[in-house]
């Protein structure tokens, strides 16, 4: 059973394995493939946007198509690329870091990934079915309610299905981290990436329901004739903005906090030092998460909420700069006095510090209400959030991928190509986005299909587009690197980076049961403690015994397919009666799968002790 992974298998067998897997490591692969695919798609959309804006009054794409591109770029990058890629790393790493054999609910984990993938596919099929959503990733009402065609319907259903998966995964990680830590792994001994996953999961739990509600109201308005956002019938369109940003602002922290965790682990490892101010780092994370719920209206300074509301939200927003600043200085202090090894993973962390600091600076600047009256909805804001999301989240994901690739796939990514990716992407990133701060202040609002000739915006836009091509080149090199590594890459040992945490105590890639014996944790950085005390390996907390494992199941995939089909039903029942067949058929499929899951006892299986003993370490 456990040696299957190393044997040659047919394509069909591998496909079936992945369709039915409940193993967190394989689910991580699925998240990575799905998220990576959508990242490339979102990148293509970004390139089309930048080519359209290479010169004034360009006609590379039409106005309507441009709006679809910008909507799908934002939606794809946030919901279908950044979040899943972060989930890929969480799935691959967190159970290993806390010394667990899997997540708390492996079945739910599989359901989460399939809901994400099928929701993402549903959303993107809109391109071929009459046009993608075109009301911006924020889908402000009434524009989104009145948008003709089915584009926004696909947005609503696609995000609803994907969002359900995200909510499940968030709950799953919460329970996993609360219940499944190895003996001795107290909260204040958890690696920062596990900590930030924990806090992020809490944010998901409280933030996503706001989006769910908002999407349901939008769905009722568009498909079932309600009038929640219709001013003419007594509705209120500003409510959407509140619901969206009560979700949307914490979402920013849902993305960035795991990245902070990755950087904390990467910087400590390659500096050969314990994380400076661990306790402060943990509490800064919690404080950022808490404050993250108090600041949503800073996206709405120009809505006309009045000076009192604007002032309160401005102060709360500025306050977030304090814990974030603590983190930046703690990372610097971690490196101070260390022995810094600069490889491609560390380069992303080093590139992150200045880039994200600039993003944080402009974050404080946009919090200053009256200054924001100028910044709001201009390229200044576009520059700001790309500095935070690319310079923070994407750099973090790339650092994490280079750092944990050996653990995930058993091979080390090529160093030379890794560095080439970094430098082209890093230079391209600053070239693309730095100038946009000035474009905004020079009078260029965001989401502009064309800018006019003779308004002084030509050079800045040209520079920005050139930068985008550098970024695209970096991504292509990264792709080549992945393929090269898969074919010819250097095989990874269990602990290639002289690591400090539990994931480096087991083979790369780990056996499907992760830990033969659950480890005993004696402090922060458990592996490092054992290394400094000369042992080099972690003491087991239990004798070798049978290991209980969950069974694979096709049900999560089938449940997701059911909702996917029902999604089409919801969208098309507006025009055609036959769509009710899809609606009810799809829902029935999901419910029957749920019934089977509830009624059928599935106790999993045991890996016998004898087999474990047979396997060499």
């Amino acid at each position: 059973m456990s040696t299957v992974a190393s044997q040659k298998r047919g394509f069909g067998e591998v496909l079936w394995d992945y369709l039915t897997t409940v193993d967190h490591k394989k689910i991580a692969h699925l998240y990575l493939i799905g998220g990576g695919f959508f990242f490339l798609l979102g990148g293509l959309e970004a390139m089309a946007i930048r080519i359209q804006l290479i010169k004034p009054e360009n006609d590379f794409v039409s106005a309507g198509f441009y709006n679809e591109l910008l909507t799908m770029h934002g939606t794809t990058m946030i919901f279908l690329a950044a979040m899943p890629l972060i989930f890929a790393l969480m799935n691959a790493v967190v159970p290993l870091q806390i010394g667990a054999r899997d997540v708390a609910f492996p079945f739910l984990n599989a359901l989460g990934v399939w809901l994400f993938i099928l929701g993402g596919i549903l959303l993107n099929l809109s391109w071929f079915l009459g046009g993608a959503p075109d009301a911006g990733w924020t889908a402000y009402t009434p524009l989104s309610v009145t948008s003709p065609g089915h584009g926004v319907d696909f947005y609503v259903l696609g995000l609803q299905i994907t969002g359900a998966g995200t909510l499940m995964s968030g709950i799953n990680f919460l329970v996993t981290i609360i219940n499944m830590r190895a003996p001795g792994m107290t909260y204040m001994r958890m690696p920062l990436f596990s900590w930030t996953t924990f806090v992020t999961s809490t944010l998901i739990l409280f933030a996503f329901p706001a989006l769910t509600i908002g999407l349901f109201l939008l769905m009722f308005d568009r498909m079932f004739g309600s009038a929640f956002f219709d001013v003419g019938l007594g509705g209120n369109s500003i409510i959407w903005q509140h619901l969206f940003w009560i979700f949307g602002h914490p979402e920013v922290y849902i993305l960035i906090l795991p990245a902070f965790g990755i950087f904390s682990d990467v910087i400590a490892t390659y500096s050969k030092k314990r994380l400076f101010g661990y306790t402060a780092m943990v509490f800064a994370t919690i404080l950022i998460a808490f404050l993250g719920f108090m600041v949503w209206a800073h996206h709405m300074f120009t809505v006309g909420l009045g000076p009192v509301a604007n002032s309160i939200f401005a102060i709360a927003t500025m306050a977030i700069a304090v814990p974030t600043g603590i983190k930046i200085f703690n990372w610097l202090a971690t490196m101070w006095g260390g022995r810094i090894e600069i490889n491609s993973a560390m380069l992303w962390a080093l590139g992150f510090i200045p880039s994200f600091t600039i993003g944080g600076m402009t974050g404080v600047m946009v919090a200053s209400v009256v200054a924001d009256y100028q910044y709001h909805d201009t390229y200044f804001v576009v520059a700001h959030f790309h500095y935070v999301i690319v310079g923070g989240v994407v750099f973090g994901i790339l650092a994490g991928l280079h750092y944990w690739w050996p653990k995930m796939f058993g091979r080390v990514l090529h160093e030379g190509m890794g560095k080439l990716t970094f430098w082209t992407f890093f230079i391209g990133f600053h070239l693309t986005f730095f100038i946009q701060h000035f474009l905004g202040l020079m009078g260029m609002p965001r989401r502009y299909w064309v800018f006019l000739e003779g308004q002084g915006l030509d050079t800045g836009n040209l520079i920005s587009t050139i930068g985008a091509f550098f970024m695209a080149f970096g991504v292509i090199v990264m792709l080549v690197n992945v393929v090269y590594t898969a074919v010819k890459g250097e095989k990874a040992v269990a602990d290639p980076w002289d690591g400090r945490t539990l994931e480096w105590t087991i083979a790369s890639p780990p056996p499907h049961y992760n830990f033969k014996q659950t480890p005993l944790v004696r402090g922060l950085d458990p592996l490092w403690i054992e290394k400094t005390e000369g042992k080099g390996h972690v003491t087991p907390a239990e004798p070798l015994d049978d290991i209980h494992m969950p069974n694979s199941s096709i049900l999560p995939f089938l449940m997701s397919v059911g909702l996917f089909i029902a999604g089409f039903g919801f969208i098309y029942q507006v025009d055609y009666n036959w769509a009710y067949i899809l609606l009810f058929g799809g829902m029935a499929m999901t419910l029957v799968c749920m019934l089977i899951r509830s009624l059928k006892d599935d106790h999993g299986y045991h890996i016998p002790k004898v087999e474990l003993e047979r396997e060499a370490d």
Partner: protein
Amino acid sequence: MKGWMGKLRAFALLGLTAIVLSACGKENLTALDPKGYGADQSLYLIILTTVIMLFVLAIVMIVYTIVLIRYRKKKGQEDFIPKQVEGNKTLETVWTIIPIILLLIIAVPTITATFDLADESAASDSLNVEVTGNQYWWHFNYEGQEIQTSQDLYVPVGERVYLNMMSSDVIHSFWVPTIAGKMDVNPENENTMYIEAQEEGVYWGKCAEFCGPSHSLMDFKVIAVSQEEFDQWVEDMQNVDPEAEPESTVAQEGQSLFQENNCMSCHAIGSSPAQIGPNLTNFGDRSTLAGVEDMTKENLVQWIMDPESMKPGNKMTGNYPEVSEDDAGKIAEYLMQLEPSEITPESAGTE
């Protein structure tokens, strides 16, 4: 904002002059060279926050550089194990307290300015204009003056003008970067802001809230003229005779075509409140067509025949009878001679 804050401001202005001069953008569109009260307030805060934040960035970058130079792994260090430091209370307190102080320095003027710009106490004694945002044009109704106009907003220089803004469809945002920051134009409630131009000029305005395919083509102008010129303009606009017969025969034919084709069911000339389409009272005085195109007869003919090619998604397309090129030319001739006032964008100086 006096004393050391004033000095900081002067210093900041000096330091940023170079940047501002080199990357200021187009005069009368940029927010970096303000000619209005609101934009002035914004720029002050932009500079203040930039300077403080650059100070923070400088400190981070200095430490960062030192770290990278001094602590990068060197040859012969393979076995060196750095001291495992847990933390340092003093240091950590320092980098918690100092940012709090810096943020307070930003917070106080921010809140002062926020309340200042929301001050509506002078509204009843000032000129009030009802602003309506539409896909994709702007309508201005001078309250109590019986003046309706679209696209070009005439205001007296040095005076506070209160704008009471609402949308007829989706959310728009009123933004004239050189004079004032922006304010959303919502369908459900009236938002009020005031603008005060400090110099005469024609200022570009843009819609800043995503509103559909032609969001990027929803430009308008604020034309700040002297008080006398403004009074003259008000008088001229109030005395417009909507039925006045044009001088040239072509324009006369255009006028009858305009009426025959029921253009007036959406558009208005004079102070009629109808506003499904833009008010055309002083159409000939405008410097741009549809906010973004040059005001030429050729362009206007194209607009009348195929508005979709100039503003995708506009509400005129498909809602009027087909017009031949010949007829369109006559209508254009009629519209372009609607020049009721001596006061035009040129009175305010060049753009």
